[in-house]
């Protein structure tokens, strides 16, 4: 490792007096440059006397019996760049030494005492390490996130997967990628976040709502995806990874290359290509479930010790086929599909993606600057521009076949400024400001009424978080945040709809004009002021166990899809309708956690309770049979009060150097005040894995995983009746769209080794026993079973 010289003598204590020749005493303190915290177990080597010492918990070392001469000290810490320094005890007897502790921050394993990585000190965090991310490199974002306890996934088929945290998803969780909140996934379960995790280095799940820095509306929690940081060395590093999967008969090619310089500059390129054809369940092909993904990223930055800046561009592009048999025209089609045990459309394997299909492209440009001068205020600025385009293609006639039925473009500009005090002492604070402007455009060429209208939204937020740490055993944290949310939408309403929904009295003033086609053009301006707050405590209980208490008050304004949705979701024969009169929802979340992060036996337990006032949800309200196609009508509504409670548990045991065991369980229950359970709540799940890992001689890793998902027994009844024609008579049957599927248990096996000493090779078998099962949180569960056994072979070359 290159030896760098970083010395910032801040305090030069006074000369203590001249005594005997070799009776000088020198006291030093080794401090982490970035957060001003003392570094213990740093090695201090006195070259002249060949003495070696280590620092204590306060980072202090004392050398006695020094003579009146100059000495050379080598200061070294396992996580830092070493430091060489000359001292003259005759002139100064105390000194602080600042070591750059960065390298530690960057090697991602969850290390104990990893102070600077936590987003907030009193919140419980789960981390997906780079190892685990690598394992899911070729998979989609939602599937990878579901590896974290407390995270499940809501899906539309197998390619559109979005994370659910503590029973909520969409706008109730926030996904922060590279310092910026992702703006694209708030439009219902069939819109997945556009993130490629192959370039990520770490994912943190912050449970509870205490990370106010990224917004005050995340009731579920925050998923923070961080890129790798680079050491200040001259190097070319990277990874090339490729693989093949038998289920879907496709594969991926990922390459990340970074050039770093000793001066701290770095330049990198990420590319990833993925292609899969039709997947298959154990018994049949899942026609039209292929997908393609092309991602590209470019970044350039410089990381000096006191400053950091970075400019990054990324492009995410995905084409996804939607299961053919999920394409429905009418409620009758839905009834027949549910009645049939197998999908009604089954064709031989193909790579072709036909309609219905989705294409998403997401551009993101981010520029950030960080200033972290020791002993001063640290500050950071981020500007980001995101452009998200989403097209959905339905099965249409004639010239419209190639015309998207939904075409929305959402552009967001985000600016964030953060200030953080880094003084030593028991009080610390953070404060910041966020500003956002969003412009949504729905292309009228679709020939279909806009699901989401054109709108402009601006948000301005300020937050402040104070932290009090009187000792290593206790931390208290208090945060407040205020957001002003302004939304201006222009939307056409059919006059008959407008009247039947009772808008004519209340919203008459919003009408701009009446069109010849019996529509009102209206302008809807919504303003919300949202106050959020958090309070957290962390207490050391002894035996490496910490307890955390979190209280969060979260206010979320209704999003445009909740206010304005207006359209037919073909996949579910559902007409979704927004509601203009929605107000903010307000949640009060209480989270209690106990965690032991060290030792051969580690665990984390969290229990939470959330009361949500005016909870916004989509409720099927009836069947619209007046159309040539009858459909279920679902309307956004507010429940006066919703109660959520749940727990997450993690446990891991390291039996020996080679053998370890991990288990995670999560349970959540959500109901309205009168006891009516809410729809689409993840059932209890329990997963565990046994890992055998041998690093010496030939590296070998064997991982056996088991995942049990129970049947959700608490669900609302939203069934409907349908008249079947059977042998010349009408038979009315109740169509059960409510009862969740049965419990299931799936196994997975993974074997990894290294070929030719350079190439990491891994064979992954998902759904090892080829179980046929259906998933309650898959919106397409009525039509087909989940994918069957899948064998994947991956080769990764690191350099």
């Amino acid at each position, binding site marked *: 490792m290159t030896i760098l010289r970083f010395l910032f003598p801040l305090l030069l204590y006074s000369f203590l007096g001249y005594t005997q020749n070799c009776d000088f005493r020198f006291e030093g303190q080794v401090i982490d440059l970035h957060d001003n915290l003392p570094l213990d177990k740093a090695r201090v080597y006195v070259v002249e006397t060949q003495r070696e010492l280590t620092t204590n918990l306060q980072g202090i070392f004392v050398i006695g019996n020094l003579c009146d001469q100059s000495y050379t000290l080598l200061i070294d810490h396992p996580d830092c760049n070493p430091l060489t320094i000359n001292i003259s005890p005759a002139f100064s007897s105390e000194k602080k030494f600042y070591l750059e502790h960065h390298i530690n921050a960057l090697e991602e394993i969850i290390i104990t005492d990893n102070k600077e990585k936590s987003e907030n000190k009193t919140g419980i965090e789960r981390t997906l390490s780079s190892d685990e991310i690598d394992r899911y490199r070729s998979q989609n974002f939602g599937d990878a996130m579901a590896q974290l306890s407390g995270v499940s996934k809501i899906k539309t088929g197998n390619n559109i997967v979005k994370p659910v945290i503590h029973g909520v998803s969409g706008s109730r969780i926030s996904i922060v990628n590279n310092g910026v909140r992702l703006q694209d996934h708030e439009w219902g379960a069939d819109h997945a976040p556009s993130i490629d995790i192959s370039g990520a280095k770490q994912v943190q799940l912050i449970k509870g709502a205490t990370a106010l820095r990224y917004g005050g509306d995340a009731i579920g929690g925050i998923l923070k995806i961080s890129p790798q940081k680079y050491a200040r060395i001259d190097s070319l590093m990277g990874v090339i990874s490729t693989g093949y999967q038998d289920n879907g008969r496709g594969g991926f090619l990922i390459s990340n290359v970074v050039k770093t310089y000793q001066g701290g500059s770095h330049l990198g390129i990420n590319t990833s290509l993925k292609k899969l054809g039709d997947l298959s369940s154990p018994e049949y092909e899942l026609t039209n479930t292929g997908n393609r993904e092309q991602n590209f990223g470019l970044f350039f930055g410089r990381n000096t010790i006191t400053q950091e800046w970075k400019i990054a561009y990324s492009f995410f592009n995905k084409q996804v086929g939607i299961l053919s048999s999920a394409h429905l025209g009418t409620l009758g089609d839905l009834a027949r599909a549910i009645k049939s045990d197998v999908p009604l459309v089954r064709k031989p394997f193909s790579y072709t993606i036909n309609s219905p299909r989705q294409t998403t492209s997401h551009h993101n440009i981010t520029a950030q600057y960080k200033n972290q001068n020791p002993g001063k205020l640290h500050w950071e600025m981020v500007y980001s521009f995101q452009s998200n385009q989403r097209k959905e293609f339905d099965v249409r006639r004639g010239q419209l076949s190639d015309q998207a039925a939904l075409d929305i473009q959402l552009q967001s500009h985000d600016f964030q400024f953060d200030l953080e005090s880094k003084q030593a002492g028991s009080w610390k604070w953070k404060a910041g400001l966020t500003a956002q*402007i969003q412009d949504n455009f729905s292309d009228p060429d679709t020939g279909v009424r806009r699901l989401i209208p054109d709108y402009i939204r601006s948000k301005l937020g300020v937050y402040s978080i104070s932290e009090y740490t009187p000792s290593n055993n206790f931390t208290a944290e208090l945060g407040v945040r205020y957001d002003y949310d302004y939304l201006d939408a222009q939307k056409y309403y059919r006059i008959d709809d407008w009247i039947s929904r009772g808008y004519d009295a209340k919203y008459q003033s919003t009408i701009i004009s009446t069109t010849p086609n019996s529509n009102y053009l209206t302008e809807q301006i919504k303003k919300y002021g949202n106050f959020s707050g958090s309070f957290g405590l962390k207490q050391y209980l002894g035996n490496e166990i910490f307890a955390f208490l979190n209280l969060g008050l979260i206010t979320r304004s209704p999003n445009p899809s909740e206010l304005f949705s207006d359209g037919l979701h073909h996949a579910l024969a559902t007409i979704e309708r927004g509601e203009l009169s929605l107000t903010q929802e307000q949640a009060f979340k209480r989270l209690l956690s106990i965690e032991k992060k060290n030792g051969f036996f580690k665990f984390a337990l969290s229990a939470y309770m959330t009361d949500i006032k005016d909870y916004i949800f989509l409720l099927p309200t009836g069947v619209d049979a007046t159309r040539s196609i009858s459909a279920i009508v679902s309307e956004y509504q507010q429940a006066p009060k919703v109660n959520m409670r749940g727990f997450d548990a993690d446990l891991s045991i390291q039996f020996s150097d080679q053998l370890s065991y991990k288990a995670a369980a999560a349970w959540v229950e959500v109901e309205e005040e009168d006891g009516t359970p809410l729809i689409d709540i993840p059932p209890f799940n329990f997963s565990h894995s046994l890992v055998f890992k041998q690093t010496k001689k030939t590296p070998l890793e064997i991982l056996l995983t088991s995942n049990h998902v129970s049947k959700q027994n608490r669900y609302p009844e939203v069934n409907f009746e349908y008249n079947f024609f059977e042998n010349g008579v009408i038979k009315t049957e109740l169509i059960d769209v409510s009862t969740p599927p049965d419990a299931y248990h799936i196994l997975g096996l993974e074997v990894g080794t290294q070929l030719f000493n350079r190439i990491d090779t891994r064979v992954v078998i998902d759904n090892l026993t080829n179980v046929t099962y259906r998933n309650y949180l898959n919106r397409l569960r009525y039509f087909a079973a989940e994918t069957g056994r899948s064998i994947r072979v991956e080769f990764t070359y690191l350099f």
Partner: protein
Amino acid sequence: MKIQSKEPILMHWFKSITVILLIIITTNCDKQPPEEINEEEVINRVTLVLSDDTNQSETITWNLGENSPTINLSPNSTYQATVSFYDATDPTDIDNITTEVINESDEHFVFYEVATAAMSIASASNDIIDTQGIGINIKTQWTTSSASQGTLRIYLIHEPSSKTGSTRSALGGASDVELDFPIIIQ
């Protein structure tokens, strides 16, 4: 060890961000109202033209939002029936969607189901034939027997996976139209 002056960078950042934000705000403020969308391919009118042996013809029309009218037939008769689908959103410019259905005969199929009424429906000799030689039931022949009553259901199926099945499930595809008409044979 080198400590750079931060001021220029800071100022530069503030300036550029202010400029960017100003541009965005000013460009967004004079937004045009969104274009009104003319919904296409909406089927909101279905007609059945029935002519009996004496070439007397009757037109039965369903419009969106209305109850389906009753179809009255005589016992032991044959009728020639032609079904048509329209987009009548704009009354001055009614779009006949049947033309597109006929142009894409391979991707379409009209399917009838009858409950309790004593009658049968088959593709007529002058029906539209797809490239596989299958009549797509735009033109059908209805044969009634005894006096009875029941329900007739018409489906317009888009992209059926088969055109030879005898139940709706066996045909696959998505229903663009699924309409019930009461039938009285007397």
